[in-house]
């Protein structure tokens, strides 16, 4: 997404889905994972006669509400989307003007799409050709359509190609920058967008600034610390710019290449300590490796309101620390919703018992490690204070520093006023009235200045920049292979001083592009470019001229720095179609991928996996739980809805293995691991696949480990973790695990005497 048009975030909002005329959902199950947000889908069906199409390997609760359900083979979304594009181009359903003015390299897509005839698509995806034609005709001609996805599209070895082709499909139909359109990625947990925006990633500083020296220097000066001091914290200067380990494969760092495990590149040492703050690491792929990683650590610290089951999983006897963290109700501060809007959360009660807030734990840790003053310096800068007020000064610090995604307008005062006056905003458009007129609820980013309205629909040129309009971001240069990458004439946001495209604004081009003359004072204050302009002069001047500080460019269908310049179908590493593995092999193995050597084609061809593991394995969520399920399974009533770990299995498949409804069964993975779960007959899955939820933990490969819980802390429900049997496989760009398209073998589990 970010590599297509500038930002990797939901473009519209849940409420805006009500404006859609058609809704297509790939690998998302909002009826289960976003039950409250799902009301907007249902309202779109009711009020707008919107047709809802659900493309999923499993007949989900969302599919139960769909007008058309498409049962797809796991990991073949690219083939399906190219099939749609094939028909769109063949029938002239594309938006030619939009493509010409605002998209680069769509011709490359067109050439690839030509190969994907409905018959070919049917062979690869398992979707009948007439269903593909029906879906495409409906979606392309319904009027504005919204495209929804979640982890079912991203958690593949080709996840980063999936998430490029979905936007390309929307670009081809001209569905971007429109109310009721857009690519609406549903964030899976509270504040995921906020955590991502704040750089809880191993390859970037907060605000997606990356790890370049220039970015570090900007942050050093913004935090009020010496760059040299920061640099000195690293083993040597070059490590400052290197990507770290990811959540998906931190354990490889701890195992450090022992016993034939993947080799790491970590300055000659393995990971020694792990500090986990509110993360259910028992819901991460390859649980047996997670256990091995935990067992290899010198020290493990777990901070959670409930006991993190990593503590139960590990055999480590010493130096495991469980810190009681407070919940969201026991502290206050901002949270960012899936649509890039911010809210203030107020404390309900003081932290209970001996629990402490996350920030308390962080501050105390910084004190013990000896950098508390540096850690907190940034909060005092704005008003040159002696001490800071939490969390207001932290919020203002974020607003002061993060320009890339336009958080300048998110001052604590403004955010609070929105939350306090939430009743003064329209529920669908987010448009404020009364004293909130001129602002959208939660100031969806980019919110360029302290007066800006926020931007409810990204890339919408029918609005002025001041009211949240913008073109695509100029992020990939001015031209490529001799083609202009800026938007063509007539595609500028409303009230723009420039008719067509323009580059991102910096100190050197501002006078020329905007046609203004800066005063000597402004020249002295202005930053090098819009991303590091602490004075915010660039943004303010841009607002006056109706320009977006980040420019107005074309979205790109081709990413020339990626292994696949345009998205290409590649079979999952563990594919049930040995013939297609030969036709669509995975990538070459990748060395030093987030510090870990990662296998692709060598794993895919290690053996013909389907011979021994003939069943597709799909994991997903249950409505009563989230993540690793720690807090949900500790709730009596939520646990009672699904008290045991289970596997949804088609009666025909189960019958062939002598597995009765309610009997126990083993699921074996290609990695040699296994889990013992209860069979639940279900027609939601076909005979070639099973579905298991990933919220359980406490049991491991048939062994009940709940006796490891400290007295009185065991949850009401425990069970095998689905991720003990999810397969090896990681995305080529992001390293997200391939949990949505693996293989397995099943057998009846005999009752032990």
């Amino acid at each position, binding site marked *: 997404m970010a590599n297509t048009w500038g930002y990797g975030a939901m473009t519209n909002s849940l409420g805006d889905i*009500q*404006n859609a005329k058609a809704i297509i959902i790939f690998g998302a199950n909002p*009826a*289960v994972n976003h*039950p*409250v947000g*799902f*009301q907007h889908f*249902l*309202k*779109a*069906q*009711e*009020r*707008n*006669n919107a047709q809802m199409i659900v493309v999923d390997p499993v*007949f989900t*609760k969302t*599919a*139960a*509400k769909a007008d058309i*359900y498409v049962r797809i083979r796991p990991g073949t979304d690219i083939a399906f989307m190219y099939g749609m594009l094939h028909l769109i181009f063949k029938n002239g359903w594309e938006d030619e003007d939009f493509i010409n003015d605002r998209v680069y390299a769509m011709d490359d897509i067109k050439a690839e799409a030509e190969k994907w005839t409905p018959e070919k698509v049917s062979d690869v995806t398992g979707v009948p050709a007439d269903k593909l034609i029906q879906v495409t005709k409906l979606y392309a001609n319904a009027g504005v359509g919204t495209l929804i996805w979640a982890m079912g599209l991203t958690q593949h070895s080709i996840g980063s190609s999936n998430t490029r082709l979905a936007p390309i499909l929307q670009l081809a139909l001209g569905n971007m920058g429109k*109310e009721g359109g857009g690519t609406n990625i549903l964030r899976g947990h509270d504040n995921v967008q906020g955590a991502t925006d704040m750089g809880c990633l191993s390859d970037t500083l907060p605000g997606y600034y990356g790890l370049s020296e220039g970015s570090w220097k900007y942050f050093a000066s913004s935090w009020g610390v010496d760059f040299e001091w920061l640099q000195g914290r690293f083993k040597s200067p070059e490590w400052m710019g290197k990507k770290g380990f990811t959540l998906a494969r931190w354990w490889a760092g701890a195992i450090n290449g022992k016993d034939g495990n993947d080799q790491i590149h970590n300055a000659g040492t393995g990971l020694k300590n792990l500090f986990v703050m509110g993360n259910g690491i028992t819901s991460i792929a390859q649980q047996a490796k997670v256990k091995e990683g935990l067992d290899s650590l010198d020290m493990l610290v777990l901070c959670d309101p409930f006991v993190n089951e990593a503590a139960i999983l590990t055999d480590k006897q010493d130096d495991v620390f469980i810190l009681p963290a407070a919940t969201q109700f026991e502290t206050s501060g901002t949270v960012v919703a899936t649509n890039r809007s911010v809210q203030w959360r107020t404390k309900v009660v003081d932290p209970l018992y001996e629990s402490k807030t996350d920030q308390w734990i962080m501050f105390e840790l910084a004190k013990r490690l000896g950098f508390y003053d540096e850690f907190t310096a940034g909060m005092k800068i704005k008003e040159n204070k002696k001490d800071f007020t939490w969390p207001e000064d932290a919020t203002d610090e974020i607003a002061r520093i993060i320009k890339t995604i336009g958080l300048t307008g998110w001052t604590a005062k403004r955010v609070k006023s929105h939350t306090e006056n939430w009743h003064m905003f*329209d*529920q*669908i*458009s987010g*448009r404020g*009235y009364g004293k909130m*007129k*001129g602002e959208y609820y939660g100031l969806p980013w980019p919110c360029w200045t302290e*007066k*800006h*309205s926020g931007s*409810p*629909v990204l890339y919408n040129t029918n*609005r*002025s*920049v*001041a*009211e*949240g309009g913008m073109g695509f971001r100029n992020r990939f240069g001015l031209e490529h292979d001799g083609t202009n990458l800026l938007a063509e004439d007539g595609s500028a946001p409303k*009230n723009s001083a420039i008719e067509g495209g323009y580059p991102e604004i910096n100190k050197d081009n501002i006078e020329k592009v905007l046609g203004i003359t800066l005063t000597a004072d402004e020249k002295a204050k202005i930053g090098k470019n819009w991303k590091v302009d602490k004075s915010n002069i660039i943004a303010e001047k841009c*607002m*006056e001229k109706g320009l977006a500080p980040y420019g107005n460019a074309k979205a790109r269908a081709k990413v020339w720095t990626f292994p696949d310049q345009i998205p290409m179908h590649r079979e999952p590493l563990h594919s049930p179609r040995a013939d297609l593995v030969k036709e669509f092999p995975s990538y070459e193995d990748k060395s030093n991928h987030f510090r870990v050597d990662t296998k692709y084609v060598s794993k895919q061809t290690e053996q013909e996996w389907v011979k021994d593991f003939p069943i597709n394995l799909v994991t997903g969520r249950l*409505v*009563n739980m989230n993540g690793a399920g720690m807090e949900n399974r500790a709730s*009596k*009533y*939520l646990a*009672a*809805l699904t008290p045991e770990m289970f596997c*949804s299995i088609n009666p025909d498949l189960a019958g062939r293995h002598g597995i009765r409804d309610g009997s126990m069964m083993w699921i074996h993975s290609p990695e040699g691991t296994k889990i013992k779960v209860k069979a639940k007959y*279900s*027609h*939601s*899955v076909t005979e070639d696949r099973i579905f298991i939820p990933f919220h359980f933990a406490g049991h491991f490969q048939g062994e009940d480990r709940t006796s490891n819980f400290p007295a009185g802390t065991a949850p009401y429900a425990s069970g095998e973790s689905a991720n003990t049997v999810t397969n090896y496989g990681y995305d080529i760009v992001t390293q997200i695990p391939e949990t949505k398209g693996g293989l397995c073998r099943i057998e009846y589990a005999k009752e032990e005497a």
Partner: protein
Amino acid sequence: MGEFARLNFYCDEHRCINCDGCSVACAEAHELPEYISRRKVITMNEGIENMEYSLSIACMHCTDAPCEQVCPVDCFYIREDGIVLHDKDKCIGCAYCLYACPFGAPQFPLDGAFGTKGVMDKCTMCAGGPEETNSHAERELYGQNRISEGKVPVCAAMCSTKALLVGDSAEISDIYRERILSKGHGVKTQPYGWDVAYGKKM
């Protein structure tokens, strides 16, 4: 709520997504034992294409309540607003009301060494029982009394898609009529944006 209001539940089949928000909210609010399901979401034909649908079901607070008619000790009483309640001190736990109820609403305890049935428990529409309103005794026997505080029953308040409606039957039918009438007429929303441009007085 009018003088002649009769309180009803209604579950919109198109809206219900089987999230169980209602049943969990109910159990949590009234601190029910885990074997008591005052409210339950029932899904039919689960997993079968074009056939699956769900409804949330509890006591429907019938006008001519069969439970009240068959009870041998006459423990039921129907309030003026139509809420059907019962007196646990009178109830003998015979389960005759369960035979009579078309919805399977009456619930019986499963505790005790020999699975004694104990007295019946059911949805009170969050209106408590015959004990003094909002007293400790009422709370212990029947759970919260939200109606006395002017609050919507907790199940409908928590419903994620507003499938489950509760209130004066006239108001419920107005809400449902509006849903039906607005079908296909587009979204009722204020337009995006304002007429005045940036920086000028709003």
